[in-house]
């Protein structure tokens, strides 16, 4: 019984958190993009920015809603399924999640309402401020989640008293070097997600020959940003590898597919690891590169999985393949963004249909990269929930029955499938219809002005300042 409740709870956590992460990673980047658009519009008075803002705001609304509701589940799941973990590590994880809620959720939620419904009720500068506050909120939320998760990856600044964690040094917890390589890694991933979704949408319109002005802006801003961020992401990806190498050697060995100690070590590019025989099949590897990647030298000794007792090893297949899929996505994105940015700079992008197709069809890559990156991090941490201190098997609610766990897993799967199906269908419809569709227009008071191409900023500001029609 205990084993199945454990397995079901792990599946449930993996499922709910994977579902959840899709939406924040989309909305973190999107909130920043909206802030930039609104600021550009206020500064330049250029109508296309405003049209794009209103358009992406709808999509943001749907994605943000899905992120909020699936996030509430996470806040309670620690207690429902992992009561031993929350009892033992509550003194550290609880305050961190409290900070997340205090600094981020309240900020996001209050200003999200203004963003969606309040344009006619507040002054333009306050509206821009609200947009920026939503963006700040999503970023802060990501920060605290990364602090919390990084502490579970590499626990620091604690003492164990009566079997529970007691924080001894919050400075170490907050300013752990692990946090400061993982938080930027996640933030860059979120910005890349936003950039690729925006560029892909621009490419879609360019292919259909619609919304030319908006499509131009989306393609350029998306691809240029991605072309700058992708090399930077490689740097932070490498820094992540360094902390794993130093602090989580078993995870590192699993990701590298290294079963035995090697000196100098080879780098396995591709293989099919065979856990039963503790070796790789069909391996393609490059000699010495493993030592360079792992130890920054030509002859460092890199340790293998067999150094660890079987009970202390992570599963190999998921981290090994997930990592390679993530890197593969990065590589394709780099090619697309590099070529796209080059052609855009030359002014030839819109005529290059193959590349537009490629850009359009790569909107899923950042999502896949984020999910597989998290699979690598989380599955690679096993069998520990707090690395090296608390095993996942000891963290579960002791009296949780397999039946109760199965019920909740089925309920979450059913509800999430249901809302995901409709949510993506609505987002697809919004994207397909594009910026100028009648449904996607702002309050009536502003509509007549928006439809003209005259950019009389002062008039626009007056219209925005006046209360919407019918407001007492």
């Amino acid at each position: 019984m205990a084993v199945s409740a454990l397995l079901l709870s792990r599946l449930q956590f993996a499922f709910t958190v994977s579902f959840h992460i899709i939406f924040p990673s989309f909305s973190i980047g999107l909130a920043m993009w909206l802030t930039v658009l609104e600021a550009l519009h206020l500064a330049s008075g250029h109508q296309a920015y405003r049209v794009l803002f209103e358009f992406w705001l709808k999509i943001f609304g749907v994605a943000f809603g899905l992120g909020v509701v699936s996030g509430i589940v996470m806040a309670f799941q620690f207690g429902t399924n992992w009561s031993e973990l929350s009892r033992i590590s509550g003194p550290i994880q609880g305050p961190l999640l409290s900070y997340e809620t205090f600094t981020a959720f309240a900020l996001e939620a209050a200003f999200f309402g203004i963003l969606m419904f309040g344009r006619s009720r507040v002054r333009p500068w306050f509206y821009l401020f609200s947009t920026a506050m939503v963006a700040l909120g999503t970023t802060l939320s990501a920060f605290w989640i990364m602090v919390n998760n990084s502490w579970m990856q590499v626990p620091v600044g604690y003492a164990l008293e009566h079997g529970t964690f007691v924080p001894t040094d919050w400075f170490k917890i907050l300013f752990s070097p692990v946090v400061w390589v993982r938080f930027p890694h996640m933030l860059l991933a979120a910005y890349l997600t936003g950039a690729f979704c925006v560029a892909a949408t621009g490419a879609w319109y360019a292919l259909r020959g619609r919304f030319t002005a908006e499509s131009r802006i989306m393609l350029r801003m998306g691809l240029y940003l991605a072309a700058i961020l992708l090399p930077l992401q490689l740097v932070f990806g490498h820094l992540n590898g360094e902390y794993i190498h130093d602090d989580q050697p078993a995870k590192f060995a699993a990701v590298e597919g290294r079963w035995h100690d090697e000196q100098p070590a080879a780098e396995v590019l591709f293989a099919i690891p065979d856990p039963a025989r503790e070796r790789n099949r069909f391996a393609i590897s490059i000699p010495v590169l493993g030592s360079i990647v792992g130890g920054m030298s030509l002859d460092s000794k890199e340790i293998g999985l067999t150094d660890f007792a079987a009970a202390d090893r992570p599963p190999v297949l998921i981290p090994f393949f997930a990592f390679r899929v993530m890197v593969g996505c990065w590589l394709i994105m780099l090619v697309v963004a590099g070529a796209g940015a080059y052609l855009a700079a030359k002014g030839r992008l819109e005529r290059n249909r193959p590349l537009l197709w490629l850009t359009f069809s790569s909107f899923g890559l950042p999502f896949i990269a984020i999910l597989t990156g998290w699979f690598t991090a989380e599955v690679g941490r096993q069998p520990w929930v707090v690395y090296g201190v608390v095993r996942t098997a000891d963290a579960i609610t002791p009296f949780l029955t397999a039946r109760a766990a199965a019920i909740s897993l089925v309920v979450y799967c059913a509800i999430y499938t249901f809302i995901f199906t409709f949510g993506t269908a609505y987002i697809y419809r919004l994207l397909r219809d594009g910026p100028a569709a009648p449904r996607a227009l702002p309050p009536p008071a502003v509509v007549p002005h928006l439809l003209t191409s005259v950019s009389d900023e002062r008039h626009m500001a007056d219209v925005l300042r006046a209360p919407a029609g019918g407001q007492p």
Partner: protein
Amino acid sequence: MIAFWLVILAVSMLIYVLLDGFDLGVGMLFGLARTEQPRLSMMSAVAPIWDGNETWLVVAGVILFGAFPLVYSTLMSAFYLPVLLMLAGLILRGVAFEFRHQAKRTRWVWGASFAAGSFVAAFMQGVMVGALVEGLPLSGGRYVGGTLGWLGPFALLCGFGLCVGYALLGACWLVRKCEGEVRAAAYRLIPPLSVAVLGFVIIVFGVALEEHLLILNRWLERPYLLICPVIAAGAAIILAVSVRRRRDGPPFYMAALTFAAAFGALAISFWPYMIPFSITIDEAAAPRASLAFMLWAGVFVFPLMLIYTATSLTVFRGKVATATDHY
């Protein structure tokens, strides 16, 4: 420090009950509306603020996690199914706001999920409070009741009671925010809902006396608790008068005051226990280092959160303009 976090927790829970109480109530009343126009008005009355309101549930949850981890882990795991159903309800009603607006043919699905989700979430909250009042089966600080240990007639009664209470808050909110048909319907609903709430309180006291619930002794030991029903009675009178005179402002405040009085009575009855009568506040509290670290958030950020909430409520004050306010 423990006292500080206890106060912050109690304030957050009260804010949650009052704010999400009215929008869950509006959600349930939404199920009664038959045509599109009133439905749109009802949804617009809560659409810009529901997310902020619901955040207070997470606020209370994480304060419990951070400051009183023992209570958090015990309650969440003991209430496995009620928490699951509450979350399912909150998800279905939360997505309904945006989805219903985007939907064309399936608009009825999201109307139904809005009403049903609100009901299930409210009902489960009431069930959990009821089970807590009745006393959860705990032994040596560990929950021993099994998957359905929380289930009982008293808990179910409290589930229905809270739904009626939230519906009353919701009706009072609609009176404030809406005009025309919705306002008139809400005014008609307030008297029967008020009577139902009163009836529920009487039945709960009756059951508690019948079952000799330990919590009742508190009322004998602490006679000052009687101030709570007195406040509630005063608020109910003003509520009745303002409904009679069709004054849109006061009913919500009076319903909220009644709720606050009930909440205060409950909180004082629990003291010094957090889970009556097995885990005390001191036993549940996190180590000093955790509470001290959180203190910064409590002293500096908590007031900011109150300001955000107030800002949002101020920006969206006044009557909703039917149908034109969404985008």
